[in-house]
Structure formats: structure tokens, C-alpha cells
């Protein structure tokens, strides 16, 4: 039941999803404390319902109505666009060309917006708090859905570490992340800024970009005369191509960071960040960043 591969799947999905849950929690907390807990909670529950519906529709469509190559192409392309955005942001943040994500600052901005917004009541709810909570949870939740689909499908299709019902285990990992973050948040009663979000986003960006590259290229086979998925060099029982693509993205992203750090604008920003003590937490000795 809980094989080592299943436990690894749950852990990976939980870590990746935790970043999104922390961001959603910050928004809901700001709305609850500043405007109305009732509206914030109803907005959150409405977003959960909408997410369940979207996931069900996407799941049924992809599982029953399309071929393997189309599935790979559609999911791979979305993952790729999505993962590369994360990776690009992480590279820019790490090089100093973009400010680090700061949960405390986001919280302050959300609270300021909540205080400035007018009062409008609809269906007995503070409409601003409801809408902002709904949008925040739905947006971050959609990213969790992508993470669950990616890791779940990858585990189900793995030749060496196959996890039967991998999608359920992946979904379990996301739920576990939500429980841990919400419990920690309820105890702390403030934004969870101690979570190394920037580093985690970089890691998840690398993973999404890796699977996105792998699947998109395989899915292009849909357009070939046979319509079958293409295969990478070294494809077989051990997923060498996935490992190779991951290493390639890791190396390329570190080269990009080193290159961009040489720019005067980046040097100035990094120096200012260091002076301000902007929470730099080295990932590895010598790489003073929290991407």
C-alpha cells in the first residue's frame, strides 16, 4: 500500500503544494483579519468547490476522451509554459534582477487593499473579502491541481517506480500540505514567512519544466504519420531522459544566474539586498540566494 515510491510521491507533492497553500493562506488571513472571517471562509469553500469541478471535468476529458500523445502534448505544454514562468522568475530573483517574494509584504499589501476598499454586501457577505479569498484560493489551487496531475501521472507511468493510483496519492500529498500549513497558520496566527518559498518555487519550477519538456516533446508525436508518442534517447526501464533534462535545466539555470549577476543592475540590487538583510538564506555555500 504505502510503498517507498508512494511515500516519495506523497512527500514530493506535499512539499510542492505547500508553497501554493502558504500563498493562499496569506490572502485569506489578510481578508479574515481585516474584513470578515465569514466572507473569507465562504470564499475559500466556494473556491474549493470550483476547483473540484474543474479538476473533475479536466480529469474525465483527459482520461477518457484523448489519446496518450494528445494527453502528453496538452499537459506537457501547460506544464512547460507554467514551469518556465516559475523558473524564469526564480532565475531573475536569484540574480537580483527581481525582488524576492516576501509573504509579510504580500500580507501588508493585501491588508492595505482590504482597508481601502469600500463596503459592499451581497448575499449577506462582505463582497470584497469573498471575491479576493475566492480568487486567491482558486488561483493557487489551480497550480496545486497542475502539480498533482504532473506528479501523479509521472508516478503512474513510471517503469521503475510505478505507483498504482498515483493520482490519489498525489492528491493526498496536496491535502497533507493543506492540513500542515493551516494547522501551522492557525497556531501562528500570522503569515508563514519563515517557509523558504523562493527556494521551493525554484525547485518546483525545475521539476515542472523538466516534466513539461519531456512530455511536450513526446506528445509532438501526435502530428507524426503514426500519431504515436515520440521517444527520447535512452528511454527505457530507467527514466534517464527525465534525469538528463532535470540536470540540464539545473545547470542552465545556474549558468543564467551567474551570467545575469554580472550586470550592473543586478550587482546594485544584490548589494542593496545584502545591506537590507533581506532574508538571504544560502541554498548551498557560495550561492547566497533564496531564489
Amino acid at each position, binding site marked *: 500500500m504505502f510503498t517507498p515510491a508512494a511515500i516519495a510521491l506523497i512527500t514530493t507533492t506535499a512539499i510542492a503544494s505547500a508553497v501554493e497553500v502558504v500563498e493562499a493562506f496569506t490572502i485569506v488571513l489578510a481578508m479574515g483579519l481585516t474584513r470578515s472571517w465569514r466572507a473569507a471562509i465562504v470564499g475559500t469553500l466556494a473556491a474549493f468547490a470550483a476547483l473540484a469541478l474543474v479538476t473533475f471535468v479536466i480529469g474525465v476529458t483527459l482520461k477518457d476522451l484523448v489519446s496518450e500523445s494528445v494527453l502528453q*502534448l496538452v499537459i506537457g*505544454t*501547460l506544464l*512547460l*509554459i*507554467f514551469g*518556465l*514562468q516559475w*523558473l*524564469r522568475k526564480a*532565475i*531573475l530573483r536569484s540574480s537580483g*534582477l527581481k525582488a524576492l517574494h516576501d509573504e509579510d509584504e504580500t500580507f501588508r499589501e493585501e491588508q492595505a487593499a482590504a482597508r481601502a476598499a469600500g463596503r459592499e454586501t451581497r448575499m449577506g457577505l462582505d463582497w470584497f473579502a469573498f471575491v479576493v479569498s475566492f480568487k486567491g484560493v482558486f*488561483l493557487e489551487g*489551480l497550480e496545486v491541481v497542475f502539480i498533482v496531475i504532473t506528479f501523479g501521472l509521472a508516478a503512474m507511468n513510471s517503469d521503475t517506480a510505478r505507483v498504482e493510483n498515483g493520482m490519489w496519492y498525489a492528491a493526498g500529498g496536496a491535502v497533507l500540505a493543506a492540513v500542515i500549513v493551516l494547522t501551522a497558520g492557525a497556531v501562528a496566527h500570522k503569515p508563514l514567512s519563515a517557509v523558504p518559498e523562493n527556494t521551493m518555487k525554484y525547485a518546483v519550477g525545475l521539476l515542472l519544466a523538466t516534466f513539461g*519538456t519531456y512530455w*511536450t*516533446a*513526446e506528445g*509532438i*508525436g*501526435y*502530428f*507524426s*504519420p503514426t500519431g504515436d508518442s*515520440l*521517444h*527520447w*534517447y535512452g528511454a527505457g526501464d530507467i527514466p534517464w*531522459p527525465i534525469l538528463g*533534462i532535470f540536470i*540540464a535545466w539545473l545547470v*542552465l539555470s545556474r549558468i*543564467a544566474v551567474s551570467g*545575469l549577476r554580472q*550586470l*550592473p*543592475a543586478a550587482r*546594485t540590487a544584490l548589494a542593496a539586498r545584502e545591506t537590507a538583510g533581506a532574508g538571504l538564506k544560502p541554498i548551498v555555500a557560495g550561492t547566497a540566494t533564496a531564489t
Partner: protein
Amino acid sequence: MGFITGFFRFWYDFVVGDAWDIAAGIVVVLILGGLLARADVLAEQQLTLLIGAGIVAVVGCSLFFEAQRRAKAAG
């Protein structure tokens, strides 16, 4: 009308975000990859490698232009 605009705006922000050049570049790589696959002129392993290289090039170009933009903005 507002709902439809908002609906598409939401999905655009979600999928494309602030890096439209990456989304556009990926679409170009997909179109070229699809044409090459249809033409059946390369071995599948060569084609996957070429698509991978194309994706890397898209990210590289996006970062290059972003760096240039920020360098210009910084004066």
C-alpha cells in the same frame, strides 16, 4: 461582456502571466516540431532532442531580453 473579458483575462494571467514571450516561443517550437514530425524527416530521438533545444533557446532569449530591458531601465 465584462464576465467574458474577465474569464479570458483570468486564464491569460494564469497560463501566460508576465512572460508572454515564453508562451509565444513555446507555441512556435510546437508548430515547428509538429511540422517536422509530420514531414517525418528526422528520427524520433533527434526530433525530441531538437524540441528540447528549442525550448531551452526560448528561455534563453526571454532572459536575455529581460536582462536588456532591466539594464536599459536602470540607465
